[in-house]
């Protein structure tokens, strides 16, 4: 025995239920419970499924609250107190052991919750484990234990807290028969040892009878009877209890109290002497209960003496030490008799005529007429089950449902919520619906201001891919050098892939919405620059901050759409020609028409840049792209469309043709001059076509409202220094708009100097004469050509 103090206290009733009632909606789970449980008692609540016993237990534990009435624990009203504040503990039906803790930690959990120090908690837990004989498993996990062992751990975990009462919720239901019987003995022993009140819920009446000091028998929410096992068995308070506990023979009839001996006049006509007449009146409908083991079977006939009746044996069931006899009594009432086997009785056979007899005190009066007449069970299996202590009563009430009357309400509420949500959504989506245009630029203002932010610490540049020299192989790229020289944080993005795409994504998406683009410097192609300017989306360049502006090649100052180049500063210029991989073409290419060589069918690519693709084809057809007319334009478009439909053109591409040329997906395609210069693959070559090439340039622009105008200006100034411009050109190998680059390259000598002689980088007059700039088209024609081209290329 452990050294905890014995639980003698002032009051002897540890739990009192006063008028406790529980309803769930319209379903009454517990009608009214009024009883108390004494300290140290082993108290069972017994009944079939649905009788309310578990609900009652939950109310004692704190997991449910009574609809009315009070629950008193050690004299205090705990009806509304949550479980973790009540001094009762529960052993759950499925044990509910914490799988992630060891056994001893499980047991110590309650103590630790109450802030008992770890060492002390562990000590007491180990002591409790000793009591349940599981000390050696202390450090295992619960999953490693058998069902019975887990059961005992659950018990220990609850008991170690020395609760005022221990609640057990059908704890043995999951165990097999032998184990169950052993556990019943164990539980009783442990209860005696710790002397704590046990409140035991079960549907197994044999179990309750075996273990309990007192039993509360419940049915359909009502407490039918509370008493000791003997009381309940011998003196059931109602027909239900009589039929539920053990087996009984129930004989309905009417009570007749006249004369000395009260008589029960059975429906079957037999008259029986009865004893416990107290509380009954003459003429009451009653039922006589006869327990099977109180009936004798004899072969001699007897006169009707009120304590016997004749019967015919119907079935004899041998059960080892005793016999069950099922006999047909008067009015064909089936009766059950339980006998010790002896020689005389052993000879009974179905069909034998016998006399059943009993002592007067064995005939017990119950109020009301029983619906079951005769033995509460004669089914062989049920008999055996009942004798073995299993519950055979019916299932009990179905779970209540709330009924359909809430549905309409729910519909209305749901509908209301939906409407509110929808209106809200529409409202929210309308915020900011009216878009303001980007702020207009004031022309000609050369100071920072004029629609520009003055930021000078950060710079966001958006450029085409691979369009600037990078830091590699010992060389420091322009961006890094710029950062070092000025201390400005540069974010350099190379995601400019296509002019139309950028127009939508980087310009319109912001400026149409009335906000500013995140970019300070962008490098669109010339025609896109023109369009951006016409929309008023470009800020005038702050020339006062760009002294190197003077290095600009003067030919750029005469463009009709921006005379004096006030809104853009050219970045690089180049031309579109033909690129091919000699491994896949098998020969050198010289002309644009080579692209249409049937030998290359399915391996030709065209740019998605309309002016380049259409322009080149026009040249191949002998037309002048700088003087394009609707007819010549459509002629070129027709040819492209035809080539596509025939499968001659494999695909249309943006920047991404290099890879295809290298791996053979494309044999030849339209290409930009600098791109090929940068590839190290000697098989991939660029050709300035004999018909001519399309000339273009990309310019740096500052979007209106850009935050870092000052930084942008510094950048432009930096890259217009011929030294820096030369570095860029040497890498990207396009045509630089900066005067003085050629000289810089020559100064460096070696390979770099050779670039100075490359006509692709520094075209002479002859080359220039074969370069064409695409005509500037009137808006409508521009639109229709673009649309047609986009359709052909699958936009």
């Amino acid at each position, binding site marked *: 025995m452990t050294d905890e103090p014995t639980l003698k206290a002032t009051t002897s009733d540890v739990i009192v239920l006063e008028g406790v009632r529980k309803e769930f909606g319209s379903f009454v789970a517990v009608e009214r419970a009024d009883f108390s449980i004494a300290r140290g008692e082993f108290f069972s609540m017994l009944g079939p499924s649905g009788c309310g016993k578990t609900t009652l237990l939950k109310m004692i534990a704190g997991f449910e609250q009574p609809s009315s009435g009070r629950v008193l624990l050690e004299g205090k009203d705990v009806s509304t107190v949550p479980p973790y*504040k009540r001094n009762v503990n529960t052993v759950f039906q*499925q044990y509910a052991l914490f799988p992630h803790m060891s056994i001893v930690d499980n047991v110590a*959990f309650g103590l630790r919750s109450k802030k008992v120090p770890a060492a002390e908690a562990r000590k007491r837990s180990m002591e409790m484990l000793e009591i349940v004989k599981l000390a050696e498993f202390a450090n295992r996990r619960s999953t490693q234990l058998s069902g019975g062992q887990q059961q005992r751990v659950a018990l220990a975990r609850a008991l170690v807290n020395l609760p005022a009462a221990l609640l057990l919720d059908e704890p043995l239901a999951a165990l097999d028969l032998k184990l169950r019987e052993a556990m019943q003995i164990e539980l009783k022993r442990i209860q005696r040892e710790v002397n704590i009140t046990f409140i035991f819920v079960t549907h197994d009446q044999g179990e309750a009878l075996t273990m309990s000091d007192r039993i509360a028998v419940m049915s359909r929410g009502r407490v039918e009877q509370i008493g000791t096992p003997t009381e309940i068995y011998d003196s059931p308070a109602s027909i239900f209890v009589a039929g539920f506990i053990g087996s009984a023979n129930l004989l309905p009839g009417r009570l007749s109290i006249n004369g000395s001996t009260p008589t029960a006049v059975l429906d079957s006509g037999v008259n029986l002497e009865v004893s416990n007449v107290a509380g009954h009146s003459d003429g009451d409908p009653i039922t006589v209960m006869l327990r099977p083991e109180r009936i004798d079977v004899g072969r001699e006939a007897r006169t009707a003496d009120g304590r016997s009746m004749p019967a015919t044996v119907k079935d004899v069931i041998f059960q080892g030490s005793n016999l069950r006899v099922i006999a047909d009594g008067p009015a064909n009432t089936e009766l059950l008799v339980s006998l010790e086997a002896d020689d005389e009785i052993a000879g009974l056979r179905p069909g034998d005529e016998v006399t059943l007899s009993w002592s007067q005190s064995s005939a017990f009066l119950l109020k009301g007429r029983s619906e079951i007449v005769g033995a509460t069970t004669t089914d062989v299996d049920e008999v055996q089950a009942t004798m073995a202590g299993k519950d055979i009563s019916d299932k009990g009430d179905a779970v209540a449902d709330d009924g359909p009357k809430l549905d309409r309400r729910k519909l209305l509420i749901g509908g209301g919520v939906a409407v509110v949500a929808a209106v809200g959504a529409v409202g929210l989506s309308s915020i900011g*619906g009216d878009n303001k245009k980007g702020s207009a630029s004031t022309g000609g203002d050369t100071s920072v201001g004029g629609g520009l932010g003055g930021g000078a610490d950060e710079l966001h540049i958006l450029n085409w891919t691979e369009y600037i020299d990078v830091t590699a192989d010992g060389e420091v790229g322009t961006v890094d050098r710029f950062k070092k020289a000025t201390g400005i944080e540069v974010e350099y993005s190379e*995601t400019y892939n296509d002019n139309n795409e950028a127009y939508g994504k980087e310009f319109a998406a912001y400026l149409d919405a009335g906000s500013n683009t995140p970019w300070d410097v962008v490098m669109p192609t010339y025609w896109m620059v023109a369009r951006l300017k016409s929309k008023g989306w470009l800020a005038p360049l702050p020339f006062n901050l760009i002294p190197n502006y003077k290095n600009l090649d003067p030919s750029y100052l005469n463009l009709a759409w921006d005379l004096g180049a006030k809104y853009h500063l050219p970045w690089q210029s180049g031309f579109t020609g033909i690129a091919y991989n000699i491994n896949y073409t098998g020969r050198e290419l010289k002309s644009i028409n080579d692209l249409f060589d049937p030998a290359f069918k399915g391996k030709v690519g065209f740019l998605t840049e309309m002016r380049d693709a259409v322009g080149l084809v026009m040249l191949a057809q002998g037309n002048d792209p700088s003087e394009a007319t609707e007819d010549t334009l459509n002629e070129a478009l027709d040819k492209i469309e035809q080539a596509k439909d025939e499968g001659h053109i494999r695909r249309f591409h943006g920047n*991404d043709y290099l890879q295809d040329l290298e*791996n053979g997906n494309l044999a030849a395609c339209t290409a930009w001059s600098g791109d090929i210069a940068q590839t190290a693959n000697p098989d991939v070559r660029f050709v300035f076509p004999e018909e001519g090439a399309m000339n273009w340039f990309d310019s740096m622009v500052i979007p209106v409202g850009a935050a870092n105008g000052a930084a942008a200006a510094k950048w432009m100034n930096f890259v217009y220094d011929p030294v820096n411009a030369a570095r860029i050109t040497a890498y990207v190998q396009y045509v630089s708009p900066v005067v003085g680059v050629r000289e810089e390259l020559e100064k460096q000598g070696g390979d770099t100097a050779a670039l100075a002689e490359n006509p692709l980088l520094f075209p002479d007059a002859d080359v220039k004469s074969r370069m064409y700039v695409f005509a500037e088209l009137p808006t409508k024609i521009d639109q229709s050509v673009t649309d047609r081209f986009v359709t052909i290329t699958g936009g």
Partner: protein
Amino acid sequence: MTATTTKPMSSTSSPGRPRRAWGTIVLWIVAIGGFVYLFIPLVTIAVFTFNDPETKFNTSWQGFTFDNWLHPFKDKAFTDALLVSVEVAMVACIIATILGSLMAMAMARYKMHGGAAMNLLIVLPLTTPEIVMGSSLFTLFFNLGVDRGFWTVVIAHTLFCLSFVAMTVKARVRGLDWSLEDAAADLGSTPARTFWQITVPMIIPGVLAAFLLSLALSIDDYIITSFVAGPTITFPRRIFDSARIALPPQVHVLATIIMLVAIAIIVIGTIAGNRREAQNR
């Protein structure tokens, strides 16, 4: 994927049915073939980390080198993009996991008014094509004049991860034994203590799995990100945008690193799980 499941024993095959054995062989072939198929591109990528391309594209084999592994972060642009992706993923996935787990717990354990509608709302993003989600978010931000950038990406990622997390956690939470919480309360544990000591350990495997799943989704997302990212360059965006001009082997190295980390997590998880199971025998 770290939860241990007790596997059903292989179904015993009925004796002496030649047809069945032939079927099993086919099954093995298909299964192995399937895994090979799944891993071919991954192996290709891994192999190409050792390539020494002369050209700008790491797509044709040129020569063997360890160089790329020695300098995996040489290409700053890609490394930066990867960092951005990881940042986004961390923020978005943590938020999504917390919000989604809360939702899942509430919905799986309580019968709530409008529970069906909530369920629908969670499932709807999963049935919406990415392109529709991306474009609708784009129009939302456009309308509100919100600058697209890091936080809009986080918002978008949080959104689509939310649904995945909620569904994953809900599925896992359904089968758990909630009487453990009652047991804890019964033993005197306050609700707060019960939450941390009992509830959290119970749901951690499911929550963790959901978190990992959302990480994968976020790091790899391209379509939705392309709509809402503005100038923010995440790893997939970088790859896609640059793939046209240059694909340095560093990209393959970074991707292979991610893949190896994932494999490592899975292997460790499986071994730990198997060991724990063996312990419990």
